[in-house]
């Protein structure tokens, strides 16, 4: 039955409805795959008992003809999502063995629609990273390797566990979060589809916060259609998150296969970086050609403030993070390292509980918010943010339906290869994705080809606010043209 894991979510849904197999069989197939793939370190917590019991419950419902949109579909959950009764750590030592008494809104909607939880997925500590190397549970392996090499590569980050697990067929889809590219970059590194919806589309309630004004949940999936199915369940207004938006969730799947004829696709000239690898350039042109062949019109557009996006992002995100992470103080839950007084308790707990990258960002954030620096850094970064947003608004006002860019400046790299001495080297991974978070727009990464070493590369489509449907339509055009990419199993 192991080939059950190679089905797409849409295919599995049909098989379950047709009673070709049961959710329990489908779930067991994935649990076996997870067990066999522990070397990837994608899961930080496996919940087989819960998975089987949820699968049985789904099977009973299916037998009664009560088929929710995701009935019986086994999923992996990024460890940033609070799961009731299941350890949730954000892959940080500071949360220790924290077990929430509550379920995040996004995951509760997945369970409402019948999905099955296989376990919790690895991620960069507090989602801070672009390689999933900052997790307290250790790095995640990318199922993809360079041709002829047995070097383990990173799956990207911060949703590295989600991307790796979906690419390695350990789960049919996964939840992820994206603050500066944490869904799209790992999706591009693993030949999976990842969408960061519009800010406010998914509730942030119950998701461990990194940078509140940028964080947004979304799925990583095996196909554009699968991503559309997952997002439909994940999205929706939540009165518990006042930044979530009260707009009806459309049937995203209906956008798949819809004609893109006449759509205007912007190609932003500022994304053509100096020294950009030729194969990225080629991939981008190819993507544009596919969309053109499908009837879309290509126009060059300008997003003049793009070059300020990354520096501004690395002010705004750490600033919010420094405040969001203040609650991990050893007083109420999680790790506590005693001290002779309360200050020492704070210092010892936070020094022991936070990893180097988190400490770095807390310090950057504290600095940029400090008296005397606030105006020069935080306030200026917010102004840049407004300008970036306006760049996109101007572009959409000219009738552009979506913007096509590369998803990442390179393919996956080896564990420990980047950022060892200069963190900015790692931060540059997000160069094409952070603008989208800064502007609060939806962005999808779709696999589009391979580099000369055989590693997957992705393209990114950026849409108007709350127009994820157009992204699904266009994404599927690229998917159809580029074909599917599956890694050769080595684990």
């Amino acid at each position, binding site marked *: 039955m192991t080939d059950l894991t190679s089905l797409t979510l849409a295919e599995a849904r049909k098989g379950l409805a047709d009673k070709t197999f049961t959710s329990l069989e489908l779930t067991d197939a994935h649990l076996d795959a997870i067990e066999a793939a522990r070397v990837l370190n994608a899961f930080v917590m496996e919940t087989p008992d819960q998975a089987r019991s949820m699968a049985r419950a789904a099977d009973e419902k299916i037998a009664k003809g009560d088929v929710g949109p995701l009935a019986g579909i086994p999923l992996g959950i990024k460890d940033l999502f609070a799961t009731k009764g299941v350890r949730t750590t954000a892959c940080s030592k500071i*949360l220790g063995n924290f077990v929430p008494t509550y379920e995040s809104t996004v995951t509760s909607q997945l369970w409402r629609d019948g999905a099955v939880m296989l376990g919790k997925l690895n991620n960069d500590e507090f989602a801070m990273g672009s390689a999933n190397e900052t997790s307290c549970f250790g790095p995640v392996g990318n199922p993809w390797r360079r041709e002829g090499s047995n070097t383990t590569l990173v799956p990207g980050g911060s949703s590295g566990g989600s991307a790796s697990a979906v690419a390695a067929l350990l789960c049919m889809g996964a939840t992820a979060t994206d603050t500066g590219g944490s869904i799209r970059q790992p999706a591009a590194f693993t030949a999976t589809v990842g969408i960061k919806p519009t800010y406010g589309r998914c509730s942030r309630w119950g998701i461990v916060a990194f940078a*509140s004004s940028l964080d947004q949940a979304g799925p990583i999936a095996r196909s554009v259609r699968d991503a559309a199915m997952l997002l439909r369940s994940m999205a929706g207004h939540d009165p518990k998150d006042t930044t979530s938006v009260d707009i009806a969730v459309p049937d995203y799947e209906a956008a798949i296969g819809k004609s893109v004829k006449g759509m205007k696709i912007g190609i932003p000239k500022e994304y053509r970086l100096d020294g950009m690898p030729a194969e990225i350039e080629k991939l981008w042109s190819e993507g544009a050609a596919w969309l053109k062949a499908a009837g879309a019109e290509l126009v060059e557009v300008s997003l003049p403030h793009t070059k300020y996006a990354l520096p501004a992002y690395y002010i705004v995100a750490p600033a919010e993070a420094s*405040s969001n992470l203040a609650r991990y103080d050893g007083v109420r839950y999680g790790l506590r390292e005693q001290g002779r007084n309360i200050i020492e308790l704070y210092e010892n707990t936070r020094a022991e509980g936070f990893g180097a990258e988190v400490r770095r960002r807390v310090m950057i954030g504290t600095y940029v918010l400090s008296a005397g620096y606030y105006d020069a850094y935080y306030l200026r970064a917010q102004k840049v943010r407004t300008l970036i947003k306006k760049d996109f608004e101007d572009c959409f006002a000219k009738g552009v339906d979506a913007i096509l860019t590369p998803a990442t400046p390179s393919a996956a790299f080896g564990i420990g290869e980047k950022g060892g001495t200069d963190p900015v080297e790692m931060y540059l991974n997000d160069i094409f994705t952070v603008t989208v978070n800064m502007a609060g727009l939806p962005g999808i990464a779709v696999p589009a080809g391979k580099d000369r070493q055989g590693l997957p590369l992705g393209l990114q489509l950026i849409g108007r606010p709350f127009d994820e449907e157009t992204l699904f339509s266009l994404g599927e055009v690229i998917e159809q043209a580029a074909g599917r990419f599956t890694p050769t199993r080595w684990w």
Partner: protein
Amino acid sequence: MSTATHKLLKGSTGDWEMVIGIEIHAQVTSNAKLFSGASTVFGGEPNSHVSLVDVAMPGMLPVINEECVRQAVRTGLGLNAKINLRSVFDRKNYFYPDLPQGYQISQYASPIVGEGEVVVDLDGGKTANIGIERLHLEQDPGKMLHDRSPSLSFIDFNRCGVALMEIVSKPDIRDAEQAKAYVSKLRSIMRYLGTCDGDMEKGSLRADVNVSVRKPGGPLGTRCEIKNMNSITFIGQAIEYEARRQIEILEDGGQIEQETRRFDPNKGETRSMRSKEEAHDYRYFPDPDLLPLEFDQAFVDELKAKLPELPDQKKMRFVADFGLSAYDASVLVAERESAMFYETVLDKLANRARDGKMAANWVINELFGRLNKEGRDITGSPVTAEQLAAIIDLIGEGTISGKIAKDLFEIVWQEGGDPRALVESRGMKQVTDLSAIEKVVDDIIAANPDKAAQVKDKPQSLGWFVGQVMKASGGKANPQSVNDLLKSKLGI
């Protein structure tokens, strides 16, 4: 508006003027906390009114409680202040165990209420106008308990997240009396509005007082902030002490260090808590979990239309409608319950226009006097508003004299009962029957021929005859009838 002269302090180098600004933290009256659904009930087992949001569990988000917004707007309207249709919640970042988020959600650059003004009532019916700088909403922290164990501290989060209004005055206050009157006035306004219960003992209303001194009219001095005062009396004491401390330093050639101080009510002195150098850098920034707070003018107008009558309006009405003195009126309106009591008396009176002023005198002098003597407050008065109104009716209609009324008041205070029935059953009715009084008058004139002869030259000695007649009638004769009769009989 009659602006009061304020008190100056004498030093060895001459007069000093105090410049005082006050920040009041008023707990918003609401059933639930500012950003969570947890209850705000006072007391209760520690940590029994705590939500996941209050203790900052991972992934929890604040959601604004609209009732708290309405209460802040109501209060702003009561302070004659500008209501900001758009305001922003900021995070004030600092570490303390009673602050689970590691930041307090407050309003920094854009508060919900802007500038306003209140009129405070001073002794002798004088008033002073004190400017309001702003009012903003923020969260209360939890409470540390240090007395439960020799080696550990505990935290009670029941209070954590309860909504506070921080009301900041302009530095318009010039002496301790004005400061006390200002806090009393704000407390009174909020109690009228029902936006804060004003219970200072329970910590529902606390004040931070900024004090500096200067030569009258000179440049502003360096200020010190006295934190967390929960008694109006202490506020007055602390200001006096602090101003004298500063004057002493300055006159000795020293300089005032800007610092935060604490008032010790036992010793009657302020002590340094932390200097400016030790002050926190709060790293305020807009809370990204909350959208800017926006509402339209119609929302404000609707609240405005439903505001209760406030003390100043009530005071003016009492003066205009019943001829009360400004002082008496301000005494009656200072406490919402007193004003309510007086108004209930007015409601029950047979002739409000005639007896309204007398009712005020009775409430202030007899009732308040008696209550004060027994250390009771108006809500525990043994004489109800209905009973007092009945007593005043009896005086007004001439059934009993003012003197008898005092006896009657005492009986009602002690024993209760219907005043009108008591007057009947105990024979306390005033005698207005002329023939009965005439006999007494005649007897007294006959018994005092010398005095009767003198009264023509000294009309003021008529009073002696009135007193004699009243005494002889056991106080029941109608004083006006006695007066008239005496005048005609004595030929004056």
